[in-house]
């Protein structure tokens, strides 16, 4: 029978005196009565009340726990649900229904996972360990107590540490490992005394007494039992008082101090009856019977033995019940194991699914990562390509700049060429004392010069403007040559003269050649035709004259003294080459000699302003 005291949560209730107990119970009930609000506070109150009255009125206690459970579920309050499971487990435990108790403790443990409260878990480990201890499954009991202990230490909860140490000591006691038991008890005692928790200290002293009694170290046993009694008395814990008194009685019995033994035994029985604890009553009665036997008071001995037997009967049924419980538990555990296996399988499947899911996620992540990488790479490639393009663009811009400059230089070269030819003409008028013509010529020349200066600033100008300059040039030349030639300018109607661009003065050198060389040796009126028309996506500009075209030497020799083609022609060729390299076009100049005269065709890529 239980000679030692396992400390569970409920033990602390015994710290309360009867009056205190009633006051606490009443205050909780008053709260429930006055505050009907269905909130978490009500759940807490219900659980506290259930906890308070668990030994006194287990049925009501269970009702309150059920109510707390219902409300918690309604509120979807996980902490309340877990707490309610634990409380129900405790109620079943006090009712010695270990199967249901274990069931609810496990449910509480499961429900508690969502609230992540280690202290909650720890309390359950302790209670579960208590059940295993009751079922004499000491290894499992030790297992759970260890868990309980380590959490208690981690959370620095001394009260839980004491409980854990004490309960582990009890297990070692049951395992006949007294040395370890004593060591655990002493450790527990040190902390308990430091805390000044008399009730707990009383329990531990009692347990120590029991160990020393078992080892027949009566002095130490007596010391511990006396200490236990003293503290139990101070804290008003009758259960411990009864156990301690019985222990002392046993010591005296073993020491053959029968009268003293009888005295303590009777006191123990009395208190055990007061707290209505059957097993301790049996303990006391058995001790008393033994004492009577030793005292050779056989009648009393038999009497007490009979009483013990009667109580034991019910107690026996208890033991039977415990055995049945164990078997039930075993069955339940086997079932649970099967269930666990199923659950584990399910969990494995879930885990596999989870792994699969994570795989998918991982794959997706890898895919996404890959995609990002790809994008990054693509970005880099695009950036690089863009950079290259920009560089190319810059390079080509630079090339354009270079050719622009070359072009400008070429255009600028036209000017001195013109100027000298014109100055020549003016000189000619002055020689002839024709001031009116000289003035006319000069002003026209000035106008042309302005135009050329302005136009040569541009890469391309509208055909209309270039033709204006060209016409002015021809007027000047006609004036100078006393109208030895006439000119005609024809532009096809499908060419928008204001919107079609040509390089400035591109035709002028050819006109100049016609005038200076074609007509130089010519008898009769010269004629120049400028004809501009579209030829596919090219603009064809024709300069046709009726001069001495066939005599090519006339063109080359008369142009300058070097016997080469005129400077203007050379410059124009160079300009067309540059245009081709810039526009990737196939602009060209072709010369054809007519029966009378020369035909120059300048083909340029069509360029529009807008």
């Amino acid at each position, binding site marked *: 029978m239980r000679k030692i005291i396992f400390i569970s949560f409920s033990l602390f209730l015994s710290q309360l005196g009867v009056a205190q107990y009633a006051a606490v119970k009443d205050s909780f009930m008053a709260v429930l009565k006055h505050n009907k609000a269905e909130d978490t506070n009500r759940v807490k109150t219900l659980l506290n009340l259930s906890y308070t009255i668990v030994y006194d009125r287990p049925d009501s206690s269970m009702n309150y726990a059920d109510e707390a459970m219902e409300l918690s579920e309604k509120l979807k309050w996980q902490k309340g649900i877990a707490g309610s499971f634990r409380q129900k487990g405790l109620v079943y435990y006090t009712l010695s229904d270990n199967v249901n108790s274990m069931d609810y403790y496990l449910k509480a443990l499961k429900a508690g996972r969502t609230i992540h409260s280690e202290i909650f878990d720890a309390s359950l480990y302790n209670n579960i360990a208590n059940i295993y201890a009751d079922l004499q499954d000491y290894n499992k009991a030790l297992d759970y107590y260890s868990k309980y202990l380590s959490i208690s230490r981690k959370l620095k909860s001394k009260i839980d540490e004491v409980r854990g140490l004490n309960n582990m000591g009890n297990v070692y006691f049951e395992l006949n490992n007294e040395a370890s038991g004593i060591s655990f008890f002493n450790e527990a005692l040190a902390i308990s005394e430091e805390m000044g928790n008399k009730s707990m200290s009383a329990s531990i002293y009692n347990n120590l007494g029991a160990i020393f009694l078992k080892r027949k170290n009566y002095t130490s046993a007596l010391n511990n039992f006396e200490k236990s009694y003293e503290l139990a008395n101070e804290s008003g814990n009758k259960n411990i008082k009864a156990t301690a008194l019985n222990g002392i009685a046993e010591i005296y019995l073993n020491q053959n101090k029968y009268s003293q033994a009888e005295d303590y035994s009777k006191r123990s029985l009395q208190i055990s009856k007061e707290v209505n604890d059957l097993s301790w009553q049996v303990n006391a009665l058995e001790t008393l019977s033994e004492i009577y036997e030793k005292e050779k008071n056989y009648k009393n001995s038999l009497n007490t033995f009979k009483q013990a037997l009667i109580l034991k009967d019910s107690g026996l049924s208890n033991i039977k019940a415990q055995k049945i419980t164990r078997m039930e538990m075993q069955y339940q555990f086997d079932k649970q194991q099967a269930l666990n296996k199923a659950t584990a399988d399910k969990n494995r499947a879930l885990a596999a699914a989870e792994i699969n899911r994570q795989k998918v996620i991982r794959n997706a992540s890898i895919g996404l990562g890959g995609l990002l990488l790809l994008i990054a790479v693509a970005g880099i490639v695009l950036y690089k390509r863009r950079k290259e393009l920009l560089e190319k663009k810059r390079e080509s811009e630079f090339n354009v700049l270079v050719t622009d400059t070359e072009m400008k230089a070429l255009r600028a070269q036209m000017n001195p060429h013109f100027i000298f030819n014109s100055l020549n003409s003016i000189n000619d008028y002055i020689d002839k004392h024709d001031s009116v013509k000289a003035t006319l010529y000069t002003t026209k020349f*000035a106008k042309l010069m302005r135009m050329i200066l302005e136009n040569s600033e541009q890469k391309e100008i509208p055909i209309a403007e270039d033709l204006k300059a060209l016409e002015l040039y021809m007027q000047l030349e006609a004036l100078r040559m006393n109208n030895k030639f006439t000119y005609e300018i024809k532009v096809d109607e499908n060419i928008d003269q204001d919107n079609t661009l040509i390089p400035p003065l591109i035709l002028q050198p050819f006109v100049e050649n016609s005038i200076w060389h074609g007509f130089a040796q010519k008898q009769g009126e010269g004629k120049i035709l400028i004809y501009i028309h579209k030829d596919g996506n090219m603009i064809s500009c024709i300069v046709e004259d009726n001069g001495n075209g066939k005599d090519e030497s006339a063109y080359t020799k008369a142009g300058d003294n070097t016997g080469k083609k005129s400077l203007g022609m050379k410059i124009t060729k160079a300009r067309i080459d540059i245009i081709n390299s810039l526009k990737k076009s196939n602009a060209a100049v072709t010369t054809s000699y007519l029966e009378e005269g020369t035909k120059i065709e300048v083909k340029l890529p069509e360029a*529009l302003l807008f």
Partner: protein
Amino acid sequence: MIKVLIIDDEQHCIDRLYKLLIPSQEKLIEITGSAQSVEEAIGAVTLLKPDLIFLDVQLGEKTGFDLLRALPAINFAIIFTTAFEKFAIQAIKFSAIDYLLKPIDEGDLNVALLKLNNEKAQKTISGKIDILLDNTQKNNFVPKKMIVPTISGFEFVDIANIVRCESDINYTTIFFRDTKKLVVAKTLKEFEELLTDHSFFRVHNSHLINLDFIKSYNKGKGGSIVLKDGTEIEVSQRRKDDFLKKLSEL
């Protein structure tokens, strides 16, 4: 009779103009004198009270504009004469004052004289001069205003208020910041020539826009511009590159 004063720092230019004016002199024009410096000119103007001055832009170290600034009142017509002062020609064009390029062409001179006779709005001359002097302070040409010919006469226009110009064959419609419109008897090309150097750009055959009023540019073949007044203007495909280059220079 029109009283004419010729102001030029080179005698041969005065002589040349004198010679060209002789045929007209008998009928309408009386040449009252000439001057070769700003100081001399101030005296001549005060003394002779001419109706028309041929005014050379470059007068020694000074300019014809300096002379105009020095005079208390402008109550005569002006025809500028210049050889090749580009900024001066631009400035003169902005104030719509007539000018002749040297060496002066007889035909051009006759046209200028004819215009002078026809011009009803001689009263606007002091306004024109104001704009000219305003635009050419410290001999730098920073145009703020311009004079534009309208159907009814002349209009003074604040360049900064022009959002855009739209071609309408031989006329141009100017759109202003305050949503006002003005139809001007000038081609868009003429406006382009005047304004291109002053933050204007011809993005299209029929559109000249003030770059200061661009709100956004939408990419496209040529793309299009949305101006601050909400109008969307198409950019000619061929102008796109130059336009974007111009934008990047801003």
